[in-house]
């Protein structure tokens, strides 16, 4: 489907490449020109991605904006792209965060500007490519393609241990990816095609033995990316050593690709294996939530704290995905977006003080709110968003996940709620130690508050945080159809259960309305909006 | 009766046995005396001068190599000569090409000075 005759998805994927060519021919000495060009390119990409909204139809079941071309005929590999509600939200998040990350690098990056922005744009190509690909090999190509620019971003512009972090990130993630490749080949040998739409339309599943192995291989690839405990050890190093913009994109988008992979591939294609391994995955998710939160409490480095908090938050998302209910799944996907917004903003916040003081140790700060009031306000809003305060985005996602999980197993929900409490703990403690109290360190006396550009990087995120928190309906509506489709495959009996009706005298009775799929709770929140 | 390879095996054993017999006989039966003069290396009756290692001129090696190449060429020419009649004109041309290639080699060796002695 095209918009004004242009295949919009292909355009979105390859426009950053045009941007790269543009940047290549710029003189390396003129830093200002390069910075302006890079920012304009990413801003344009953001604007173009908004066009997707105009053509998107939220009542249609199935992929939209589908573009199909034959790429490698002899191997049955197509250039097949398309989006549904899930990918739509993630693409918009990707373009927004890339623009904000580019904007935030204005004064942070001093040398080799051209290469820096070229790698950022290359990263954007990979990110958007992953979210739109519907052909397995095309997906894999973009998935691996993303590793290279991130490796260079960490390795060249990173912190002290950048080399170690970069190669660890690369090899660890690649390990999962290559397992995924073998699994993709097994899928091909069974179905005879790499076309995801065709495989899903076929309906027949892999035999259980093969499905188990393939699920496990995909699980490895995605779980390393999420990251789930115990595959998370690359994350603290990569996040801490990466430059600010790199961390924003790493936490904001790259982590989502793991969970996106589960939602897009594992759940619809390997439902039996998913159900078989669900208890183990949930256990790992719960461990991630609690362990991530506990370790965050102990961190002395701000970035590491936020990195471990990502482990905890993504554990929440995994919990929501593997609860196999529409509420939980919608909550999980929404929480992906929320996490991108709040953690992206958190890394930007750390970047602000790091640029000024070149340290991230919490002990070095304290009492900053007296010198940087606007910064304090922004920091507070983002902290609340991360914790999940009602009124902000985090609450909606976490609440929906907990609700969906509670319906399946209350104990899990209770353990997960523990994670929320711990989350409030470390975030508020962090805020208190950094912003409140007496300004003791003399180096902090002269700190300047946010300038206009820096404030501009936060405003879209704050707006989104409030928007999703107060009125999440537009965001949740686009997820209706895709989530319904997935839950129908993974948990068919869910829609067969008639919903509860409450009679006039207060006693619940199972009604006969088998067609409706709104849980009473969801209908309730729907009325509130 | 031993046939074919059996005969060769027998001959081989015979040869080895004879060698062992000859050497063994001289070892066990012969007198053995050693003196300082007897154990010195032989150099026409005088005391040895200098080391036993002599710098061997590499030119000999070069000449030997060239000899081998052209000797084998002539061996092939002999082989060709025996079936000269059957091979006819085509054979003549083929052997001409063979000789031509070797002439190129000779010209190369000549031009590069491999045939000079000094």
């Amino acid at each position, binding site marked *: 489907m095209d918009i004004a005759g242009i295949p919009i998805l292909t355009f979105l994927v390859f426009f950053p490449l045009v941007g790269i060519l543009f940047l290549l021919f710029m003189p390396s000495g003129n830093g200002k020109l390069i910075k302006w060009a890079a920012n304009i390119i990413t801003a344009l990409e953001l604007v173009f991605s908004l066009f997707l909204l105009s053509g998107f139809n939220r009542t249609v079941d199935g992929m939209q904006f589908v573009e199909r071309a034959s790429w490698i005929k002899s*191997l049955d590999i197509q250039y097949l792209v398309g989006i549904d509600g899930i990918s739509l939200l993630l693409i918009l998040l990707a373009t927004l965060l890339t623009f904000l990350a580019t904007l935030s690098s204005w004064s942070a990056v001093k040398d080799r500007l051209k290469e820096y922005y070229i790698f950022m744009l290359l990263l954007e190509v990979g990110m958007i490519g992953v979210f739109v690909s519907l052909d397995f090999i095309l997906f894999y190509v973009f998935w691996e393609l993303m590793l290279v620019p991130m490796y260079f971003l960490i390795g060249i512009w990173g912190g002290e241990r950048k080399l170690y972090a970069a190669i660890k990130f690369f090899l660890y993630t690649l390990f999962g990816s290559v397992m995924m490749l073998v699994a993709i080949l097994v899928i091909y040998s069974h179905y005879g095609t790499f076309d995801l739409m065709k495989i899903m339309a076929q309906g027949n599943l892999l035999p259980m033995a093969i499905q188990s192995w393939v699920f496990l291989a995909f699980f490895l690839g995605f779980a390393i990316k999420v990251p789930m405990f115990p595959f998370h050890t690359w994350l603290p190093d990569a996040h801490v050593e990466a430059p600010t913009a790199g961390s924003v994109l790493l936490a904001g988008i790259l982590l989502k690709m793991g969970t996106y992979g589960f939602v897009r591939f594992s759940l619809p294609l390997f439902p039996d294996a998913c159900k078989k391994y669900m208890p183990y995955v949930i256990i790992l998710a719960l461990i991630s939530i609690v362990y991530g939160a506990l370790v965050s409490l102990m961190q002395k480095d701000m970035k590491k704290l936020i990195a471990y908090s990502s482990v905890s938050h993504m554990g929440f998302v995994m919990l929501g995905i593997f609860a196999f209910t529409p509420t939980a799944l919608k909550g999980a996907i929404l929480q992906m977006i929320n996490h991108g917004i709040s953690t992206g903003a958190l890394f930007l916040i750390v970047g602000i003080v790091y640029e000024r003081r070149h340290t991230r140790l919490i002990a070095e700060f304290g009492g900053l709110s007296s010198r940087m009031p606007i910064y304090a306000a922004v920091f507070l809003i983002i902290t609340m968003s991360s914790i999940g305060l009602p009124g902000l985005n985090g609450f909606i996602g976490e609440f929906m996940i907990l609700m969906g999980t509670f319906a399946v197993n209350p104990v899990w929900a209770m353990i997960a709620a523990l994670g929320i409490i711990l989350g409030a703990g470390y975030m508020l403690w962090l805020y208190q130690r950094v912003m409140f109290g007496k300004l003791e360190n003399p180096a902090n006396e002269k700190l300047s508050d946010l300038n206009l550009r820096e404030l501009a990087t936060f405003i879209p995120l704050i707006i989104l945080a409030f928007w999703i928190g107060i009125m999440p309906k537009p965001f949740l509506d686009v997820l209706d159809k895709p989530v319904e489709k997935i839950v129908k495959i993974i948990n068919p009996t869910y829609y067969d259960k008639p919903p509860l009706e409450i009679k006039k005298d207060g006693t619940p009775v199972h009604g006969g309305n088998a067609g409706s799929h709104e849980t009473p709770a969801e209908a309730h929140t729907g009325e509130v909006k | 009766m031993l046939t074919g390879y059996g005969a060769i095996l027998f001959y081989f054993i015979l040869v080895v046995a004879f060698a062992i017999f000859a050497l063994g006989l001289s070892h066990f039966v012969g007198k053995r005396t050693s003196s300082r003069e007897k154990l010195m290396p032989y150099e026409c009756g005088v005391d040895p001068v200098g080391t036993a290692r002599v710098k061997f001129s590499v030119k000999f090696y070069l000449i030997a190599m060239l000899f081998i190449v052209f000797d084998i060429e002539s061996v092939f020419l002999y082989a060709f000569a025996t079936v000269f009649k059957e091979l006819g004109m085509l054979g003549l041309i083929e052997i001409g090409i063979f000789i031509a290639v070797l002439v190129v080699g000779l010209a190369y060796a000549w031009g*590069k000075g491999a045939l000079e002695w000094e």
Partner: protein
Amino acid sequence: MITAILPEIALTVAALLILMVDIWLKKKVIIGYLALVGIAATLVLVLQSLAVEGYSFSQMIVNDNFGFFFQVLFLVAAFITVLLSMHYFRDNTQILGEYYSLLLFAVLGMIFMVKATDLVMVFIGIETLSLSVYILSGCLREDRRSGEAALKYILLGAFSTAFLLFGIALIFGVTGTTNLNAVAAAIAGKNILLDPMLLLAMVMLLVGIGFKISLVPFHMWTPDVYEGAPTPVTAFMSVGVKAAALAVFLRVFLMALPLLNPTWRHLLVGISVLTMTVGNIIAISQDNIKRMLAYSSIAHAGYLLIGMIAGGETGISSMLYYLVVYTFMNLGAFAVVIAFGNKGEDNLAISDYAGLGSRFPALAFVMTLFMLSLAGIPPLSGFMGKFYIFSAAVKEGYIGLAVIGVINSLISVYYYLRVTVMMYMKKPEREIIVAPVQPGLLLTLVITAFLTLQIGLFPSFYLELARASLF
């Protein structure tokens, strides 16, 4: 009859002409151009040779698509090698005549190897190639490592040739013929599949040819010879000799011994796993970039064997495609090594590459391209080649082998990326002098870098070509 071997004749004439011209010519650079012209003329004749399909010279030589594919590959590789040599030997022109004529004779040997359908012809081709390359690897007379490389190569090569010859003799003893097709027919007819002499012959052939492909455990010569030989010769050896040996391997084992397939398949699985693993693991500890590339080429031979184990149309065509991909990315990597080598054997330690990303950004960029392609990162051609081979393996049911293959790919990423780490992420420690890049070398770099990208992004043409080149 003559029309069947026109390319070989052209090549021989060119080589002899170079020898002759070398005696009188003072300006040695022209010899390089003569070599280029000779290779180009041969290439033209090869392209026309498709019209003369079929067997000739009493069934000893065949002109088919398989031979055509490899001949074009060899000639292109030789062309690029000559371009590289012209840069490398610009100041060192003593031995140019011998060097180029030997190079052309080596290509001649490779062409004979690939066209051969008789074991004796195979042997002739292998020997022509081997002797030329023995001398080529030792042609830097002042460099001790070059002499050591040549000596090791000759001794081990002669030893393995003896194995090969013994295998050929045993095959002759069992089947009464050396023609590949007749051997297959004889094995089928006499029903001697389990004859120990035949199995021994097969193993001997495997050893003899495996030496040339640098399979483990016959690989011990590779690092020393690759390190000691002049870098253009190393480049040529790593792509040309390996491809030729693999072509012969395919011909002999698929044309003559197809019925022994179940037996040699098992052997090859073990050898392939060993080769990949040993190559990749030892490469991690290398300091010298030529040795690292030598071990990497050993590992790539392991990946190629997976294609042979898979067999069938997909398996063999995946090998052919991978060889094309491998030729260009390896030649490109060595071209960069030559560019940094300062017209000689300088700056060969990997730590010498520190900081080159800022001094020579274009060179560092193409080196990164080649390293990533060798590691198998999409969307470069190295990934597509590995993908094709692994998909053939999975298709035939060798999933475990594919898993080992991808894990080895992963291990190899570490040492390929180490070069990029040096170039971009470390400061230079000592003053590195690099000679300016000549047009020939520049052309090589551009062509190989472009092809590394193009064959990966748009592989259909090459895949179809590979598929059409089976026999």
